[in-house]
């Protein structure tokens, strides 16, 4: 039985999309509470601008929340290299044969790290810095060597 190795590569985001949604609701309700009395008194333009502004806020929040949970999860266990990618709420899962898997990078960290096993290829490292990519590639290479040695 080979030891399990896992890497979670993700962007830093302090709030979950749900929490960001709550923050939007607070803003929206506050803005509507402000606009409503003006509409009652005939100043409907205030509501028009409020809705316009809230649309802008919604677009901003959505565009951020869409990628808030983006991550790449790499798991090496039982002879299998499992790569899970979540990008803009699209989920992708790729399995590579750990014995045939190899890590391709140019050593600078400037390009994404390519994982190949036969004809299966996947690129990871979107959410980490150059140094992070270099470190990840190094760690994964070592883990793959260790896994090959044990098996």
């Amino acid at each position, binding site marked *: 039985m080979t030891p399990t190795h896992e890497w979670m*590569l993700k962007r*830093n985001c302090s709030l979950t999309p749900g929490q960001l949604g709550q*923050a939007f609701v607070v803003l929206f309700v506050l803005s509507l509470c402000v606009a409503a009395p003006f509409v009652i008194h005939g100043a409907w333009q205030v509501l028009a*601008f409020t809705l316009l502004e809230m649309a802008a806020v919604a677009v*901003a929040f959505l565009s951020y929340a869409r990628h808030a949970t983006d991550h790449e999860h790499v798991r090496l266990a039982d002879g299998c290299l499992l790569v899970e990618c979540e990008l803009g709420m699209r989920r992708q899962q790729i399995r590579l044969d750990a014995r045939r898997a190899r890590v391709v990078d140019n050593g600078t960290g*400037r390009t994404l790290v390519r994982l190949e096993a036969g004809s299966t290829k996947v690129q990871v490292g979107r959410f980490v810095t150059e140094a992070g990519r270099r470190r990840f590639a190094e*760690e994964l290479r070592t883990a793959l060597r260790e896994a090959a040695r044990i098996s």
Partner: protein
Amino acid sequence: MSIAGTASHPDTHAHAHPHGWRRWLFATNHKDIGTLYLWFSMIMLMAGGLLAMLIRAELFQPGLQLFAPELYNQFVTLHGLMMIFGAIMPAFVGLANWMIPLQIGASDMAFARMNNFSFWLLPPAAILLSGSMLAAGGATGAGWTMYPPLSLQMGPGMDMAIFAVHLMGASSIMGAINIIVTILNMRAPGMTLMKMPMFCWTWLITAYLLIAVMPVLAGAITMLLTDRHFGTTFFNAAGAGDPIMFQHIFWFFGHPEVYIMILPAFGVVSQIIPAFSRKPLFGYASMVYATASIAILSFIVWAHHMFTTGMPVTGQLFFMYATMLIAVPTGVKVFNWIATMWRGSLTFETPMLFAAGFIFVFTIGGFSGLILAVAPIDIQVQDTYYVIAHFHYVLVAGSLFALFAAFYYWAPKWTGHMYDEWRGKFHFWNSLVWLNVTFFPMHFLGLAGMPRRYADYPMQFTDFNVLTSIGAFLFGLTQVYFLFAVVLPTIRGGPKAAAKPWDGAEGLEWTVPSPAPHHTFDVPPMVK
């Protein structure tokens, strides 16, 4: 399990920085955009200050000396609009751009391109506003409050001002969205909301205020525009409209606007006082709650600006007591600042001088506000120089002093150089003295009944006006000194600043070198 690292922004990699004018026109880096905001506000401060000097030159003696009353009113109006929308607000947005990502450990603002756009809306707005002087009939002379029916009778300069305010409002909204998303989402791991620096807290609350009230201003000035050109009569009594309605809408925006200009100042002072007292901020949580309370109360006090428009006594009582209530959270803040200093290991470098000076002079403005909250007194001094004295103590002694404090505190981080301490102190003491010489006598003028927005005054007000004008000229000269003897030399050179030039300062901004590199916190730090 190992984590290879997390990035604030995906796919970060080294890229070429544009140079020359492209660096500024296409700026997406928060530090560059912060610098642009700060320079823009400095230029507007000088332009608005020049108008103030012209106003004081006219008021140096009774009688009409230099300008026709119409031109004088244009100067007064543009002075107000430029200082509020052009100088103070953009200056705080500039500080936010520079410091929020550094304080929360983020690599940049959340929406870098929107950040660029929100800045570049400002110069056209400033050109529209100042260019309106050249329009037929000159700029608007209806005052920064743009009350109808006067604003309905103005020439095309009024339309230019309306468009300028729309642009500046749109810029503020985009800035606020950016700040909210940045603070909520991009805090370093471990930095919970209740661990955030006070400057970030005050800006988060200010951004919520901006989002809440900017549509109200936009609605008000759009209604003015349609009244002027499209046949509506929202504010025209002859067409069954109501000019008082404008005042309600305007001040519903206008009063929170005052807090938009002062809450970030509270944040700055809350950063500086602990640093130079070498103690943590006293009552951090109560500071946060007090800031939020002030913001909430700001929504229910607007009609204290309208006591003389004829409102029921119950209405007067409500707005009077609600306004007085604001003194409670403000008092909490002043108490906490003083308690932070209490038994601290105090030193008085220039940032601390301005922060301590802020507490002294802003409190004078706060107290005169409390006096104005009393409806029977306000009715007596409505639209007199007492009101001018009050809000200049809030905005000059409050917001501007905090901005100066912020410059001296963070300039080493921005420029990599220490400013000249002697010059900083010279700037402070001159500012403090001439500020009081300028604005304190205005209380007496107001109590004696001198009305605002007139180019002339009776002989009995001469002495205090002469004193005020002399104070204003010297205060203005002091700010020219600040620009040429402090700001520019600090940018050009000076002793090298350490990463943490203030030994009592705390926060992530002091963990990066001085000057702060173009890219910081590509990997967010862990906050314990």
